[in-house]
């Protein structure tokens, strides 16, 4: 069988991946929730005999808020309503915020892993907003409260079980600024 070959270059498409493709432009550090710094005083060597009174966290400190007030409320499955336990915690938060009027807070809404990502982002926003609204109803100036949703991106319990999921469905009140160090 006779075959004649004819070559025709039909199209030449050139597409180049620019220099930055593997080196995206630098991005600013996230102002992520600030981890509480352990401010436990170092043990003091004393020659003289002194009575050291047991001390709790410094009043107005991050530890004070965490230990004596409570920083998280917990939601039912798929829920966003505050039960009486949650309301007690938020009342303590409001009272504490009244005592330390320079403090600003960020309320984060969190969800368990048993939902889809985008719906959970919306649900987390709704949860954070419910906390904010309740604090505002107790007299906290809304301008002191920011909200954020992490959806299912910020679990605090690593397990994949009912107990972990219950812990991960929370509203997290975090001191952003203005606390005693």
């Amino acid at each position, binding site marked *: 069988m006779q075959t004649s070959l004819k070559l025709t270059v039909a199209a030449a498409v*050139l*597409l180049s991946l620019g220099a930055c493709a593997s080196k995206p432009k630098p991005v600013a550090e996230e102002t992520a929730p600030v981890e509480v710094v352990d401010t436990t005083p170092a043990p003091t060597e004393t020659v003289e005999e002194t009575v050291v009174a047991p001390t709790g966290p410094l009043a107005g400190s991050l530890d004070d808020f965490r230990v004596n007030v409570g920083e998280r409320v917990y939601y039912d499955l798929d829920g966003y309503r505050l039960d009486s336990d949650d309301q007690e915690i938020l009342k303590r938060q409001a009272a504490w915020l009244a005592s330390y009027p320079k403090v600003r807070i960020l309320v984060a809404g969190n969800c368990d892993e048993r939902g889809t990502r985008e719906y959970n982002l919306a649900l987390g926003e709704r949860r954070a907003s419910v906390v904010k609204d309740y604090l505002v109803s107790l007299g906290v100036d809304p301008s002191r409260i920011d*909200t954020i949703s992490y959806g299912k991106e910020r679990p605090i319990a690593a397990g994949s079980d009912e107990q972990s999921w219950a812990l991960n469905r929370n509203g997290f009140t975090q001191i952003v600024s203005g606390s005693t160090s």
Partner: protein
Amino acid sequence: MKRILMALATAFLFATSFALPSAAQLQVRVTDGNFTPTPLAIPDFQISGTNAELARQISDVVRADLTSTGLFEMQNPASFIQKDLSLDVQPRFADWKIINTDGLVVGQYEELPDGKIAVSFRLWDVYAGEVMRINGQPGRRLTTTPDNWRRIAHKIADSIYTRLTGEDPYFDTRIVYIAETGPKLERVKRLAIMDSDGANQQYLTPGRNTVLTPRFSPSAQEITYMSYEGGKPRVYLFNIETGRQELLGNFPGMTFAPRFSRDGQSVLLTQAQRGNSDIYIMNLRTRESRRLTDHPAIDTSPSMSPDGDAIVFTSDRGGSPQLYIMNADGSPRTCPSGGRDAACRITFGKGSYSTPVWSPRGDLVAFTKQSGGKFYIGVIGVDGKGERLLTEAYLDEGPDWSPNGRVIVYFRESRPGAGPQLWSVDLSGRNEQRLKTQTDASDPAWSPLLQ
């Protein structure tokens, strides 16, 4: 580093005839219920040059692409009788019939004087005893630089797939996803990209900020996604070619769940304000945005129909997350149930439904379903009829369509505590398979066909 990813010249070869043009018999039906893969023989390509290894690799990728569809079965080379195949000589069909091969691909690899490589191939219908024309030509020849050899292989596989199935091609594409590393409580999430077959994996963001839900523009090498940059969760555009990231819009609240319109000219997204999430559309040229839903329930995850007339989304206005369709212009819609409403609910099965994605063909919506402690990927007609569940696992989430609408990619956590992995499944529900990634991976999205 400047890297030429692709420099590809295609050429049609062989202007003149082989066998007389009678209709070839070989046709693979992708939707048949009782399905048997079509046997194909693709011997290693003939070599005109020195790099036999590269020629074999190209043949391997062609075979792997076609095998990955589940539609074809590659014949064992040990069974091949004819060893003296040549691109320009008709094969001895009897030698291929006797090993029950329906289709035979004969290819030739060449090294060109300018340093480029060229691959030519022909597809033979063994039983009809004739060459199968591709775009009217009895063969195809593709040329590129040696480092870009995988795209030649994908284009050859696309040609064969399209010729045999009648479906549009999809191998010469990429998949963007979120690469996950680190312990569960301190997950690092980076934007990453790979070829459709998992080759050439690379990170696009450094992981300092959590990034989520990337989606490809249907018309350009551009992505929209959500990032927590600056501590604010917002929707960005990301240009793959330049690496440039750009904040989309000036919304006071959190923006998330972005997705391009099918023409690539707009982005649909969700804004949450004071706890309520509603859907907006932003025109990328004018940068004007328009609110599309105004409801106290959660409305999110919008996806536009290919004709741009309607939008499917997730809403919990009925008490649990379900799928709804609204008209893109906000006008009332005639619902399948008969009534007219701002939005028509299309899911009524047990459980909740979310992450709807309208198919490129327009007739189906892919979704994630959650019911009875399991997650499923499924499809449903836009009229709410014909729901089919394609997959089931501890967690299956976030489907996206191949550009030809035949394959769905999604992510799976196979059991409690297992990290997420990328999987794909044929629209028929057959051929579930894992796409291997170097790290855990989630939120896959398919690119359009590369240009």
